[in-house]
């Protein structure tokens, strides 16, 4: 929909950009084998298709390995301070709604020190695209546990295992009233770009959690369901409006009995295609329910958890501005300075 705050499309006659055009001249400084490389590659691959001129793109991050991301994108970028990327993005988008503003953050940056800004930026529905690299560890500070580390995980700061119950980023995003919530995996080079495209198309804040492998401090955190051979059996790709199916030959599915979920094999003991739960991405309660699915009892759900419309923060703000400016005689500075009452001294 074309709204005043719609990001301006590129001049159609301009030569289409390639993924190379989005690589900056800075050498990438992640550890060899880090999942961040793959995410960077996917983002650079998708950018040319968005049809947004490069100068209109801004990547804003906090602090962390993941937050080095903007340095490697040949767009405008801001590597801010730990946990605060969302706040800079909100200010920039509110001041310059025509820009396409992206936030890159980590499980520590976005959910530990940045948790409060995460909560409030999502509920305001500022039209930002937020990608959270979840490696369930603090990488840059060399391996302490994060709010998404699994209970009992042994790390530098938890030599006897963590005693903290983790939070689920998707669940928190749902409760924060987000209008678009998704999840993908660093190495899924087919699904990840698809998600990035979808979030870019969404008007309003879109939040994408990406499971990312930190091969130095938390290697293999996701391999038990992400690895190619088991992936189709242990991951389920959510598709709005479609029945929930998975499995090597898509033969399995999810059924719901009230609020109780179960895995069935279509065709086996009476389970019919029609019985499968059809995913409704406009219902937060459904999203919340599905977010509870986890391996080994269930396949790990990825894809689009939520996707619906709500007016954005900056649109409502600009509407107030236009409304006020439409009043005759509005915006008269001299009148403002004179105030409600003046008197003359001869």
């Amino acid at each position, binding site marked *: 929909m074309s709204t005043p705050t719609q990001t301006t499309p590129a001049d159609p006659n301009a030569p289409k950009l390639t993924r190379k055009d989005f690589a*900056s001249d*800075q050498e990438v400084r992640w550890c060899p084998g880090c999942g961040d490389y793959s995410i960077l590659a996917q983002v650079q691959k998708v950018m040319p298709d968005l049809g947004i*001129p*490069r*100068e*209109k793109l*801004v990547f*804003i991050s906090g*602090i962390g390995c993941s937050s080095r991301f*903007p*340095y490697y*994108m*040949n*767009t*405008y*970028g*801001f*590597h*801010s*301070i730990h946990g*605060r990327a*969302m*706040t*800079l*993005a*909100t*200010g*920039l*988008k*509110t*001041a*310059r709604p*025509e*820009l396409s503003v992206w936030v890159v953050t980590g499980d520590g940056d976005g959910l530990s020190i940045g948790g*409060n*800004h995460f*909560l*409030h930026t999502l509920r305001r529905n500022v039209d930002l695209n937020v990608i959270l690299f979840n490696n369930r560890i603090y990488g840059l500070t060399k391996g302490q546990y994060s709010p998404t580390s699994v209970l009992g995980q042994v790390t530098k700061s938890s030599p006897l295992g963590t005693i903290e119950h983790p939070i689920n980023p998707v669940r928190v995003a749902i409760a924060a009233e987000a209008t678009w919530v998704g999840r993908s995996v660093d190495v899924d080079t087919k699904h990840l770009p698809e998600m990035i495209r979808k979030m870019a198309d969404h008007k309003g804040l879109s939040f994408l959690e990406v499971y990312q492998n930190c091969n130095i401090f938390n290697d293999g955190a996701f391999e038990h369901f992400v690895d190619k051979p088991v992936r189709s059996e242990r991951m389920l790709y959510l598709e709005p409006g479609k029945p929930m199916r998975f499995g090597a030959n898509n033969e399995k599915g999810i059924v719901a009995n009230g609020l109780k979920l179960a895995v069935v094999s279509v065709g086996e003991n009476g389970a019919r295609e029609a019985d499968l739960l059809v995913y409704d991405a406009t219902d937060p309660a459904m999203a919340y329910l599905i977010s509870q699915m986890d391996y080994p009892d269930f396949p790990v759900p990825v894809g689009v958890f939520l996707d619906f419309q709500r007016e954005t923060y900056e649109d409502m*703000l600009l509407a*107030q*501005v236009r*409304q*006020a*400016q439409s*009043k005759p005689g*509005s*915006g008269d*500075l*001299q009148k*403002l*300075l*004179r*105030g409600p*009452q*003046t*008197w*003359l*001294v*001869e």
Partner: protein
Amino acid sequence: MNRRITEERDAVTIRFAGDSGDGMQLTGSRFTDTAALIGNDIATFPDFPAEIRAPAGSLPGVSGFQVQFSSRDIHTPGDRPDVLVAMNPAALKVNLRDLPEGADLFVNSDAFAKGNLKLAGYESNPVEDGSLSKYRVFSLPMTSLTLRAVEGLGLGQRSAERCKNFFALGVMFFLYERSVDATVQWIDQKFAKTPDLGEANKRALRAGYNYADTLEIFNRTYRVRKAVLPAGEYRSVSGNEALAMGFIAAARQAGRTLFYGSYPITPASDILHELARHRAFDVRTFQAEDEIAAIGAVIGAAFGGAIAVTGTSGPGIALKSEAMGLAVMTELPLVIVDVQRGGPSTGLPTKTEQADLLQVVHGRNGECPLPVLAACSPADCFHTAIEAVQIAVRYMTPVVLLSDGYLANGAEPWRVPNVADLPGIAVTFATDPHEYQPYARDPRTLARPWALPGTPGLEHRIGGLEKEDRTGNVSYDPENHDRMVRLRAEKVARVAQDIPPTEVVGAKSGDLLIVGWGGTYGAITSSVEELLVKGYAVGQVHLRHLNPFPSDLGDILGRYKRVLVPELNLGQLRLLLRARYLIEAEGLNKVAGQPFRVDEIYRKAASMLSAMQPV
């Protein structure tokens, strides 16, 4: 009533005091506006508790509003009231200590019943036990007279009693020969939606006026003629109003959008409230979830090319300090307003103080310099806001603007500036991809170019890690770091280039120089005026620029035998002056949440001076 004498006064100070619920702030403002309208010079000092409404009749619940109005140029709301209006015993108890002998004391006798007396800690009724013999006491049954006046309007008891402040106002209007008309008009507007309440208030107002007129006990009225002020159109303005207008004007002069990000905090919240009303000027206010989000958003808006401002008070500055460092490192233009209040910690939220100076100058990790300005009067807040924006965009730096609770809520007459006369604010943005380097510098200001997202070919990345000179790429090179640290310091030091010569009031050299900053301007100025009249060789310098200092300050300090620095803290400017100029600056320090009284400064200075050369 021709029997009644009219007495000429050149300045009078009245303090209205009562319960938080008694509407004393409103009463005081109405009296102030009327005085202003007839051309008096005025200065006000509202003083209210941190609670919204402490329990009726209790000491912590007392709210006061002091106004000085005069026929000459004044700078303060007056040291001690000539007149105290006390609506209940608690108000009397709290304010009596400030009342000089012989002052006029008006009390609402209806409120001096057992319960209230006990709440205020009075054994016996002071109005009757003779303990007030030092004052001219006028004990009026304001509540009952008000109730009688509004009879028949069918108001509930509570709303009816609520009108008694207008009764008191009416009495004062009569005694000081002011007409009630302006207030009547004001009531009509204000209560347009609830006409019967308006009617009640008008009746109470007139009742008070007529009561004073007909009553025998008042054998005289007082006349305070209009002051001789520079010709022009005037309004009354508070510091927070002036700041809000200053930023709107600055954005207009710069031709940019004004972005104000803030988290509510006393006494800065009113800036947000005022700005939120002006969407018509494309003012984009953002009420953040906390102070950190507020400045974060402001940094983002500055990156985007807005005139970006955040406002808070001391505790909020503490929270913003990490992000202020980011603004220094990324060299983006923004203004951080600190409306100082009593500290440390939560301290005394509604009281005034000047104890954040060292925090804003030194309170960040690493070598992290930025310019610091301080406004010296409510009206001055307007011009300081504009100058802060000018410096920020010219030098590409965050700038701190210091105000305080006394300036924020106090009001004074302000000659409305002509928009055509406002200074222009030139903002230039980089556009040429060929010569663009994110950290190249202007030879004069050392400012780096401002390159806005959306500009083709200028795509670049900035952040909080140390930057390579010129390119702005991340650099851990030792020499580069040392160079950049000194470049950032030098850039801020160069702001002194644009500081006009320091104005010295009084003796240009001699025995004593009084150096002040911020909201103490009025009290210092008044005391210096008196000292000069007495013939002392005293000079006055009031600093608006606290970092960097004006380049001529060192010379000026050297021209006096002694230097006195009065501050509402334990000597923060004094510390900076001593460190910088190695001079034996002495302090007059009060940290009581209250402004200086003129006589406090006068006495200290006089004692220093007479020690040197008895007049």
